[in-house]
């Protein structure tokens, strides 16, 4: 058996994979937060609750309607996206002119309401969601055993993140979005319906959170509080990566997942705090975050 710094290689690699899986969730959630923050200038505290809703919708789809994982992987983000449209049109749009704290409070309130609803119906204990048939089992790579579903989570989320990045950085739609992030008034003066773009961006950002939620359903317990557990770390990721940077939030998400995983191997006691230690150091050295621009 090969060792690295006294740790058996398979153990190291499996923690690395676990870190990548967590990092995938961080990346998808912080990406959505970054896009929303860029255009709407709000910190969407409800992101974790909408991720939780994605996971619950996956479970409910199977439980009540017999809709399988693959259907819900598309349907749950769609439903949450539509909910996002309502949240933005009915509530958020009135707060853009006010201080950040109001939208933060509102989205925090939405989190409490959503979590409360799911907790009162389904309690605090988790719902089990089976790994879809096609992704069950594991593949022996020789140097480690790779659970198929975890590999799928990493591949799917990196693919989605890169697709979102390409959409924003390489297409004309993305150019409009980037311009809107810089100077929404001027973009509107060119005849572009900026309010509608804002609504759809919010919907897209929260749909991404729901997509992450569906991916998470088979490996994490589906509970009302699963989003709250994750979102604090995700906010730290956003701070480390730098607010409003697309590629930054993807790389930081994956990177911190891996750092967290490795910490579990080398110094398990610090694994739940390492992200915040990194955040403190980054804030000392680069207050705007690793990829952020000083304003």
């Amino acid at each position, binding site marked *: 058996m090969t060792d690295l710094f006294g740790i058996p290689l398979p153990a190291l690699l499996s923690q690395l994979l676990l870190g990548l899986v967590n990092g995938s969730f961080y990346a998808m959630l912080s990406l959505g937060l970054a896009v929303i923050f860029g255009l709407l200038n709000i910190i969407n505290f409800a992101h974790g609750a909408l991720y939780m809703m994605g996971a619950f919708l996956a479970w409910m789809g199977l439980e009540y309607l017999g809709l399988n994982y693959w259907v819900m992987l598309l349907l749950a983000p769609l439903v949450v996206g539509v909910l996002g449209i309502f949240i933005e049109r009915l509530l958020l749009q009135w707060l853009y002119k006010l201080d950040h704290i109001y939208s933060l409070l509102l989205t925090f309130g939405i989190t409490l309401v959503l979590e409360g609803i799911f907790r009162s119906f389904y309690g605090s204990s988790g719902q089990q969601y089976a790994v879809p048939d096609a992704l069950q089992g594991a593949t022996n790579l020789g140097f480690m055993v790779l659970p198929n579903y975890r590999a799928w989570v990493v591949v799917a989320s990196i693919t989605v993140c890169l697709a979102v990045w390409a959409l924003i950085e390489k297409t*004309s739609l993305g*150019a*409009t979005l*980037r*311009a809107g*992030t*810089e*100077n929404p*008034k*001027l*973009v*509107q*003066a*060119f*005849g*572009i*319906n*900026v*309010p509608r773009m804002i609504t759809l961006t919010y919907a897209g950002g929260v749909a991404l959170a729901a997509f992450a939620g569906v991916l998470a359903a088979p490996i994490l317990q589906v509970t009302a509080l699963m989003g709250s557990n994750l979102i604090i770390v995700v906010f730290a990721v956003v701070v480390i990566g730098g607010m409003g940077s697309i590629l930054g939030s993807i790389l930081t998400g994956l990177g911190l997942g891996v750092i967290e995983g490795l910490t579990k191997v080398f110094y398990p006691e610090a694994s739940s705090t390492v992200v915040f230690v990194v955040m403190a150091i980054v804030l000392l050295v680069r207050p705007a975050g690793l990829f952020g621009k000083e304003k």
Partner: protein
Amino acid sequence: MESPAIELSDVHAWYGESHILHGISLSVQKGQVLTLLGRNGAGRTTTLRAIMGLTGERRGSIKVHGVETIGMPTHTIAHLGLGYCPEERGIFASLTTEENLRLPPLLSTPRSTPMSEEAIYTMFPNLAERRQSPGTRLSGGEQQMLAVARILRTGADILLLDEISEGLAPVIVQALARMITTLKAQGFTILMVEQNFRFAAPLADYFIVVEHGEVALSFPAVELATKQAELDVLLSV
């Protein structure tokens, strides 16, 4: 009679609590070049921004091609045929030159023929060479060219140009003057704010001096010589 391209009657506009425009009335006929003169802070830029719906509250009447726009959102107003070039040029740093050029969509009811990209690159050859550079890497003159070029691509027939000669080298200012003359010959209606009187004087058909958010003086270009003394008093700092 055909309605004017732009017609403002008793327009008041605010930024938050500050009342900037105090009842401006003016009209710009089709194909006319009208220059707004005045001291800094007189309300010239705000007049352009009020037409685009970019101020806070607006009151009075602002008609574009005879259509009342006071209750319209900014993006709907633009589609009536307006092309807006802001004072700070508004070139987007995160967009390449080409993306900046292509950002404003074709207007839904273009009143002039949208200028093709080839025609634009022929008119502004520097931009063609810098297509893939980030917009803010361009020189000040090139950024100004880009800011004007991108609104010519949309089919707008009314151009609102805010201080386009500001801070540019004399040779660039001359190029801009030739450009305005060309655009005027092509039938564009142009409402421009200018600090540089020598730049504006030979171009404009009509002058309006704005003072304290009101029209202080207005006269056609032919009366320029007789109004010069009055003008000097109004514009002296």
